[in-house]
């Protein structure tokens, strides 16, 4: 036995023992195991496969297409915060255990915005509008949803979304998107051409308060017995529909300013409409509308009673991740849902650390 006194170390731990050929071979094998784990780790993280479409690449492309706008969302960049209440009538409980559907009131915060990555762009009648909501439910649960005032989504998966984004990139020579690239994209994506026709056939409303906002992606409602029901939800306005004006006001924030004036008078209301899917209704393709005869359940009423400008810790600093769902609502197999969740997270992480400039939409004092 070698000497085992701590004052005179065992020879097996000496450098000379480690440098013996048998030891070096074993150390080499151990090094190879460590290296293999490092390579596997890097591969899993996508560092070794540069061609993959990741959330980082998607958000980089938004920045590339729209230019840098530090502190703002990479999409739906121009917006204003809302606050209100959702009063559930209990009718949603037949399909879902989510506490949002139990009779009662919950506070809601959220955001009205325009689609696109330009935070200072002028409002126009055909700008796609969005309503994002965060329901503060009982027991710390949260339900977030980000909806648009179009009937279907133009693309059905993240790759197509990326392709459409690239095809809308401005040509540096003309300052406009390349029409050939747009045509090529639509030729390769007939579902987008069909969805665009559906969107064009559907008139835009005159403002934010009389628009219907659709979640577009399908979700699954889960009841107490564990049964799942596919659903698409919408916020349908109580304010009467009026079509987009042919001569919009010159004010570059006219849509937002009208909204602020409208809600200063009285709360604006929307009904939460659950459209119940039937077997065979597509849940993984947001470009396809569901048949118009599907059962619709009015689950309650959203009242928006306050509009405030984006600021620290309000809707500006929230990610309206559509997969922030309460128990009782689950994601469907729609591939856009996971991709939206991932991309919103990257957009949020970037803007959180950036210097802030005031939003284009400010709310006059006293309102």
């Amino acid at each position: 036995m070698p000497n085992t006194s701590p004052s005179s170390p065992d020879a097996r731990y000496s450098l000379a023992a480690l440098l013996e050929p048998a030891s070096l071979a074993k150390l080499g094998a151990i090094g190879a195991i460590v290296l293999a784990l490092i390579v596997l780790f890097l591969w899993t993280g996508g560092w070794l496969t540069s061609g993959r479409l990741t959330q980082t690449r998607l958000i980089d492309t938004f920045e590339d297409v729209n230019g840098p706008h530090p502190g703002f969302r990479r999409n739906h960049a121009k917006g204003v915060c809302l606050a209100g209440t959702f009063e559930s009538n209990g009718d949603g409980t037949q399909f879902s255990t989510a506490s949002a559907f139990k009779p009662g009131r919950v506070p809601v915060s959220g955001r009205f915005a325009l689609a696109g990555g330009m935070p200072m762009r002028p409002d126009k009648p055909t700008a796609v509008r969005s309503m994002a909501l965060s329901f503060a439910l009982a027991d710390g649960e949260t339900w977030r949803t980000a909806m648009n005032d179009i009937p279907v989504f133009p693309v059905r998966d993240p790759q197509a979304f990326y392709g459409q984004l690239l095809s809308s990139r401005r040509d540096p020579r003309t300052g406009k998107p390349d029409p050939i690239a747009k045509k090529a994209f639509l030729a390769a994506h007939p579902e987008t051409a069909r969805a665009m026709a559906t969107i064009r056939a559907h008139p835009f409303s005159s403002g934010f308060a009389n628009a219907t906002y659709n979640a577009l992606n399908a979700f699954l409602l889960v009841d107490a017995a564990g049964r799942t029901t596919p659903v698409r939800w919408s916020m349908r306005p109580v304010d009467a529909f009026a079509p987009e004006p042919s001569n919009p006001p010159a004010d570059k924030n006219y849509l937002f300013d009208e909204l602020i004036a409208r809600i200063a008078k009285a709360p604006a209301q929307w009904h939460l409409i659950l459209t119940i899917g039937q077997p065979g209704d597509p849940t993984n393709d947001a470009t396809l509308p569901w048949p118009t005869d599907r059962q619709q359940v009015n689950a309650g009423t959203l009242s928006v009673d306050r509009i405030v400008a984006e600021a620290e810790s309000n809707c500006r600093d929230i990610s309206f991740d559509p997969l922030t769902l309460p128990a009782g609502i689950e994601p469907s197999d729609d591939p856009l849902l996971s991709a939206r969740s991932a991309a919103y997270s990257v957009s949020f992480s970037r803007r959180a650390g950036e210097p802030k400039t005031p939003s284009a939409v400010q709310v006059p004092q006293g309102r």
Partner: protein
Amino acid sequence: MIPHFPVLSRVLHWLMAVLILAMLFVGVAMVSSLSDYHRLVAIHKPIGILILVLAAIRLVNRLVNPPPPLPTGMPVSLRVVAAASHWLLYGLMFAQPIVGWAMLSAAGYPVALIGTFHLPPILPHDAALYALMRPLHTVLAFALFATFLLHLAAALTHAFVFRDDVFRSMTH
């Protein structure tokens, strides 16, 4: 021969080894995957909190059941490296899930675990704090992976090169 770790210590050790390595891979896969992002996030949060709970149990267990002594012939330099890397691992096992929890809190995300079960926020909703916590979570992940690899390499070196009882004390 040095004595073995008690059964509870060995069970906790190997359970956490699997969970931590899996979590590191889930973490890097999650932030680079569009299609599986939500599934990976859904397991990342509860397993992260499970690791935090197990780390606390393990620390208490370590105080109750102290680890067996290192072989008497091990030089002081190796003892110092062993002790430092073990405490670094303990520190990271606590810090990483706590920073993850803090990061979600500062972002205003609910810390949803399973069903309706939620943890309370441990930081106020503050984007600037989130902007500090989010990269810290990444840095700690790399530090934990590096320390894990060092620990693995050292364990294998004890098993096959030094051929002492250190590796056996955790496996038998």
